[in-house]
């Protein structure tokens, strides 16, 4: 018989059943009668005037129906679209391209292969324009202005600062020891194994648009479509967005890409369903990037090792349009979490955004809007300071951590951390890895000239976007929602405003409801992603599903419990206040045999409900969190370096995470494993660079290096549990912690191996040749 496990159990995933049979429903699996295919012509130039687009040869191919250009879209007011950052972005250009691989025209055809032939046959004439790929050069007064469409004739997008500038300057001047370093966090790409795509179906009879698309935020997309295309008669009740199974998101499936818009336009134009699926190169080269932050970081400390001041100055490269998928009210997202796990007296952060001839975006890559940038910077700097002070990096951290009794802790940059026990996590990690013995081994190896390093990262995250005082998307508050309907036989359907991309919501949400109502997980169907059926929500990213939607699920379940109590009182002929709840049933205080199970109560809700009470047993909750949650952890990495080749080999990696109360330990562990691998990736492998002409380097999986099973170490994980005081379940969210925490642990380990040689910093990704170069510079060779 099915049992209700609830929180804290490693319930096996319900969604696996279809995935392991090859029966998932991903976007490219959808095939509709009469469906047309879209393929996109892209720019070989990073900056150029389009002087002609000649479609004749493409249109001569049998099966090619149309070649759509920016001028065509402009007739309908669709050549541009708004971004979430109060900027606008070209859907298709009218006369100028601003980055390589930018969409230039779209070919509509009866078949996928014919559409590709059509795209190859479209001829475009360009007149190359000067290219700017370096944001520092872009901000110089003599740089060519890239965005001629804007009133402000500059490549400077915005300036943002937080903290006390003067106090921080004073504190740095007065510090006994200061350290300063330039840290570049390069462009990377989420590269989920499934690329992006959609099928748009316009029903001209009903005037209804159905849009199946790989989106992490279907409801927000529906509203965006209504706002952007309202003038064409698309009203929100006539738009249905369906997010099918998603093959990984990590932030890359939050934005609206031009392909989606063109597909919708093409479907409305032809009255037929239109499919657009990116190939991998289009995905990496044109979809939203992550990171690209140039940080100058300074820390000040007392001689005894006490940190006093932090100052970060950053240039953020946003590419051609500021299309960051950042729903906070702050242009640099949550970057001001950069004081991390440490108790600073003063801190000051400023960020300037710049336009360059690179693809637009600025998404998360499995983190909450710039939290990885912040965490990497503070954890790298903490190590540099510790080494500068000749202190052990662990001892240094333990000395400077915010004390457990200081929570809720108000940071100098304005956040209120909900809860934490940083000492506990670091000590556990040190114990697991055998820190003291490793330091001894390292000292011995050094005498033999061998290079071994130990790196620590004790990060603090900020997730669960978010409280409406700090977050919105086009004015929409960042609540999330759950609707639970308990059927007469005691089975339930629960719908959420979020959308899983592999996180296992069908299982974990069912556990939350099982925990609250005692209905077995197997008896609860969880649905997400269909805007016609699910309550309005803002989607899944920024580790917000547990902090926000699972909270909504708990609140909705509790509403149901409140009603169930009334029904139980009626059935048991007792007063409500005499009833006690034990998971799955109400019983009369002192007479446990006088009980009604939730299933009996559900049946009564439809067959025998008390007078004056509505029939049915269902509830909806919209949860606007009072605060963000602050998961944390301590990671320790051990590396060995090949002096001859510069290769870095990760020998061990221990991760201790604290995400508050845990819904499903198996899934939490899986999330941490995946996150660690996506932290390893930018630390050692992944990067997208551009040459001076704006050519993309690293624009396919041949050069954009996702780690394989051979590069990925055997992760060792553990948890401490410090519940969130404000979350209904005490949970915090964990999907991104490891991505945030891991890069600094790895970088710190590599530098730790070479600090004694005079090496202070190497920018990630730490490739063999970069290591070889600094070893050479410091006289080490094989």
């Amino acid at each position, binding site marked *: 018989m099915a049992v209700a496990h609830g929180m804290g159990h490693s319930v096996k995933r319900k969604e696996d059943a279809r995935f392991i049979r090859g029966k998932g429903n991903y976007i490219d699996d959808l095939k509709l009668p009469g469906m047309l295919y879209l393929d996109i012509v892209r720019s070989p130039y990073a900056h150029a005037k389009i002087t002609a687009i000649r479609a004749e040869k493409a249109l001569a191919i049998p099966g090619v129906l149309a070649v759509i250009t920016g001028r065509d879209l402009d007739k309908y007011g669709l050549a541009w679209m708004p971004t979430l950052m109060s900027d606008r972005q070209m859907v298709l250009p009218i006369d100028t391209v601003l980055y390589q691989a930018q969409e230039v025209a779209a070919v509509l055809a009866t078949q996928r292969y014919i559409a590709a032939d059509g795209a190859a046959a479209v001829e475009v004439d360009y007149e190359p324009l000067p290219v700017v790929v370096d944001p520092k050069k872009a901000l110089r007064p003599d740089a060519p202005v890239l965005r001629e469409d804007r009133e402000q004739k500059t490549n400077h997008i915005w300036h943002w600062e937080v903290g006390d500038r003067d106090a921080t300057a004073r504190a740095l001047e007065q510090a006994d020891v200061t350290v300063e370093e330039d840290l570049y966090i390069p462009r990377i790409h989420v590269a989920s194994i499934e690329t992006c795509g959609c099928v748009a179906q316009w029903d001209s009879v009903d005037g209804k648009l159905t849009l199946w698309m790989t989106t992490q935020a279907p409801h927000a997309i529906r509203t965006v479509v209504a706002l952007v295309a309202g003038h064409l008669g698309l009203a929100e009740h006539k738009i249905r967005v369906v997010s099918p199974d998603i093959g990984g998101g990590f932030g890359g499936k939050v934005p609206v890409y031009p392909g989606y818009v063109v597909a919708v336009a093409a479907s409305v134009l032809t009255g037929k369903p239109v499919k657009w699926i990116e190939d991998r190169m289009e995905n990496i080269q044109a979809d939203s990037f992550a990171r690209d932050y140039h940080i100058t970081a300074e820390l000040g400390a007392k001689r005894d090792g006490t940190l006093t001041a932090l100052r970060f100055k950053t240039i953020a490269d946003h590419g051609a349009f500021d299309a960051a998928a950042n729903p906070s009210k702050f242009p640099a997202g949550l970057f001001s979490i950069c004081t991390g796990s440490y108790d600073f007296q003063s801190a000051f952060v400023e960020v300037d955004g710049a336009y360059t001839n690179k693809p637009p975006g600025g998404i998360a890559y499995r983190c909450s809007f710039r939290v990885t940038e912040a965490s990497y910077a503070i954890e790298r700097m903490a190590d540099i300071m510790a080494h500068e002070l000749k202190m052990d990096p662990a001892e240094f951290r333990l000395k400077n951590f915010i004390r457990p009794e200081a929570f809720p802790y108000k940071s100098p940059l304005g956040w209120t951390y909900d809860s934490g026990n940083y000492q506990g996590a670091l000590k556990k990690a040190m114990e697991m890895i055998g820190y003291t013995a490793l330091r001894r081994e390292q000292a011995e190896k050094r005498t033999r000239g061998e290079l071994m390093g130990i790196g620590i990262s004790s990060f603090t995250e900020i997730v669960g976007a978010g409280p409406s005082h700090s977050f919105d998307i086009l004015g929409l508050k960042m609540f999330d929602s759950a609707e639970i309907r308990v059927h007469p036989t005691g089975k339930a359907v629960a719908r959420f405003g979020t959308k899983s991309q592999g996180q296992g919501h069908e299982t974990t949400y069912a556990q939350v409801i099982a925990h609250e109502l005692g209905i077995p997980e197997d008896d609860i169907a969880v649905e997400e992603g269909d805007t016609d059926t699910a309550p309005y929500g803002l989607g899944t990213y920024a580790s917000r599903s547990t902090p926000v939607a699972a909270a909504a699920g708990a609140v909705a379940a509790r509403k149901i419990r409140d009603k169930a109590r009334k029904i139980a009182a009626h059935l048991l002929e007792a007063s409500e206040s005499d009833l006690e709840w034990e998971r799955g049933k109400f019983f009369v205080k002192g007479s446990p045999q006088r009980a009604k199970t939730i299933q009996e109560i559900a049946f009564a809700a439809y067959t025998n409900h008390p007078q004056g009470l509505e029939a049915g047993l269902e509830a909806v909750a919209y949860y606007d969190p009072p605060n963000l949650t602050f998961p944390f952890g301590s990671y320790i990495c051990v590396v060995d370096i090949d002096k001859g080749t510069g290769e870095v080999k990760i020998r061990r990696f221990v991760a201790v995470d604290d995400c508050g109360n845990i819904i499903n330990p198996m899934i939490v562990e899986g999330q941490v494993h995946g996150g660690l691998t996506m932290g390893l990736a930018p630390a050692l492998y992944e990067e997208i660079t551009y040459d001076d002409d704006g050519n993309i380097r690293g624009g396919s999986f041949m050069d954009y290096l996702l780690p394989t099973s051979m590069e990925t170490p055997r992760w060792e994980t553990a948890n401490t549990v410090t519940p969130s005081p404000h979350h209904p379940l005490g949970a915090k969210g964990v999907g991104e912690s490891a991505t945030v925490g891991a890069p600094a642990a790895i970088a710190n380990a590599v530098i730790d191996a070479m600090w004694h040689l005079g090496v202070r910093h190497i920018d990630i990704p730490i490739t063999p*040749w970069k290591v070889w170069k600094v070893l050479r510079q410091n006289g080490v060779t094989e």
Partner: protein
Amino acid sequence: MIPGSFEYFSPQTLPEAVTLLQRYGEDAKVLAGGHSLIPLMKLRLAAPRYLVDLSRIDGLTYIRESEGFLRVGALTRHGDIETSDVIRSGYPLLADAARVIADPLVRNMGTVGGSLAHADPAGDWGAALLAAGAHVVATGPRGGRTIPLDEFFVGTFTTALQPDEILTEIGIPQSQKNSGGAYLKLERKVGDFAIAAVGVGLLLSSTGACEQVGIGLCNVGPTSLRAGQAEQVLRGKKPDDATIARAAETAATESDPADDLRGPADYKRDMVRVLTARALRLAVGRAKGGA
């Protein structure tokens, strides 16, 4: 990514295949495993009008020793070489190389002949087989001819094969007692082309001197390279540390790498030095009966 259109032929015999190549000349391409050509076609960088698939021709898949040579049929897949007992027991250089080509799935489909004929400077077989002193057999309208591998690679993607010739066999001098070899590849991750790779094949004399030695370099020039001067440093000498170091330095000067994402040219040149020294030490150890 969708390739352009082409006409497909699947001949059952070698003469049939050669006739097709004669008929279509430069417009035809041979399809062996397809793992070099098909990606280029999907990118539409290559658009051959005719594809001649060799996979249905019998008798081009084998690994056998005869008349002083190890003979490998051109359609033998990388994975078959990787798991072959003959190779594992007698040809460590080839066993090493087979293990590091691309990834296991590619090795199940890609063929040694296809890889050589593609002549990618990053192809592992080029460097390994140069080191092994191999030759290839090309079959054309006038029958077969033997081409020493030293004369085979003409340039990037360009070989001494005529448009109507098919590479059908690779021959490698049979392994002897006291012969050894090694192939070391430095790569950014599994599946990537080499930053640099070095193959070494050698035969030690009864006195322990290098009687025969071959050194092949991968992805450090426009083609697979043979480090002839480095071989000269070793020939007739005992491979002691100093000689190995000198040979490794010489090999580095013989390489001709270009800067790319894998690193700048000076790094790659130094990697040739480091890998050559390591491969030589490993090969010497093996020749002396070590692991």
